[in-house]
């Protein structure tokens, strides 16, 4: 159990795995916080793997985070998909639309030429 946030140290989830929620955001819903962000567990800077989907965690105290899995998995089959691991996907943001009752997620996709 964590009772504090420890800057500069590796932060583990409730199962002892390293938290993977880079470029993350936190949402609050029905008594729980949700932290989601880029899953970089297979990114080493050498291969073409930029991301491995978007992973989400839940918590009631902001210290201890339970892994809720890949809420947006990578698309391994289609090389042209923005969700392919080689796609330079960053900074997922989710917004709840009360009108349509949908959770809408935007992803930033950078092209290989930097635009």
């Amino acid at each position, binding site marked *: 159990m964590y009772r504090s946030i420890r800057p500069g140290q590796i932060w583990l989830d409730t199962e002892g795995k390293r938290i993977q929620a880079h470029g993350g955001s936190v949402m609050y819903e029905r008594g729980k916080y949700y932290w989601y962000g880029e899953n970089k567990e297979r990114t080493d800077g050498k291969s073409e793997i930029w991301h491995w989907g978007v992973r989400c965690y839940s918590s009631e105290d902001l210290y201890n985070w339970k892994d809720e899995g890949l*809420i947006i998995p990578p698309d391994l089959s289609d090389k042209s998909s923005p969700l392919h691991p080689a796609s330079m996907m960053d900074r997922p943001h989710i917004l*709840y639309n009360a009108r349509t009752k*949908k*959770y*809408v997620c935007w992803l930033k996709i950078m092209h290989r030429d930097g635009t």
Partner: protein
Amino acid sequence: MLAADNLLGPYAIVRTGLRPLGMSAGDFDLCAAPDGKGYYFFEWVHSETIIADLTDDYCGVTGYYSTHFPQAGPPYVREATAHFVRKGKHYLITSGTTGYFSNPSQAAACGISHVFAPVLDVAREPRFGRMNESYGEDETLAAPLGTALTKGLQSNAGVEAVAKHFLAFHQGAGGLHGADVSVGERELLEVYAKPFAAAIALAGLKGVMPCYNFVNGELVSFSKRYLTDLLRAQLGFDGLAVSDYCAIMNGVTVNRAAENACEAGWRPCLRGWMWSSSFPTDSGTNSKKNSRGGRRTLPFSTPPYCACLKPNSARGCSSIRLQRKELCACFFPNRRESFPSDRRQSRSCY
């Protein structure tokens, strides 16, 4: 964009390849206002911050948007905007465009060498119109807060804090700006000088801006008692003093504490001054030039000698001593006035 019925998914792609408003869009945030309207905050890459309206389904932009914080380019352009609302106010936290390195302060990033803060005035005269600038009426709170800000500012290489307004600026008689302050020695030291003493001793304060007002009948800007004996000798300040806007010219035109501009310029030199703003013959033009780019150069200073600060690429300034004639020429290149003797008395200087 993707959409789902539950926060944890499953998400399905709704559309791809949006180039919002025809712009290259960098790091961003999304938010919904209480009325349900959606907004998209993003960095128009290397240009400015855009806040765009979202369509009703939040899956696109309507074309209506506002622009904020325009800048010439990195590292000044803001990126990675995060928006939140707290107690009815909207906040943005943004980053400088420093390529994954931590941001220096904006002052450091812009090459500003002197930041005119903290305000260490102890505000005990509620009729004075600048109460809100200060840390309040308690000198024991102003001291650590001002010390902390000084440390923070000066932790950036090349940035010096200039604390102001030395001394008792907020206490002008009748709440009037620049009026005389009638105050006992002990109160002056233990209340009004205390935050300055703390920032000098505990944070190595590098700059002080004297006030516009008189203290016990002496114009502080020209005062040996307050700038030399108290600030330098007693409090141990050895940095630069920077005049408040027009304070030197005011010494002639408003305060009548010097007979002419030349004397008004000379007196503070004897008191350990440096020149600053809005004096057309010196750094008025200089600071304008420098606000457009490059490190600001401050042409004047330091006690007990008159010295001139010249720009130095390594640190900003270096000093050389000048003879009085050269000094006078430095202030008043088009005048033939000779410099007054430093022994010459003016009406209300001492």
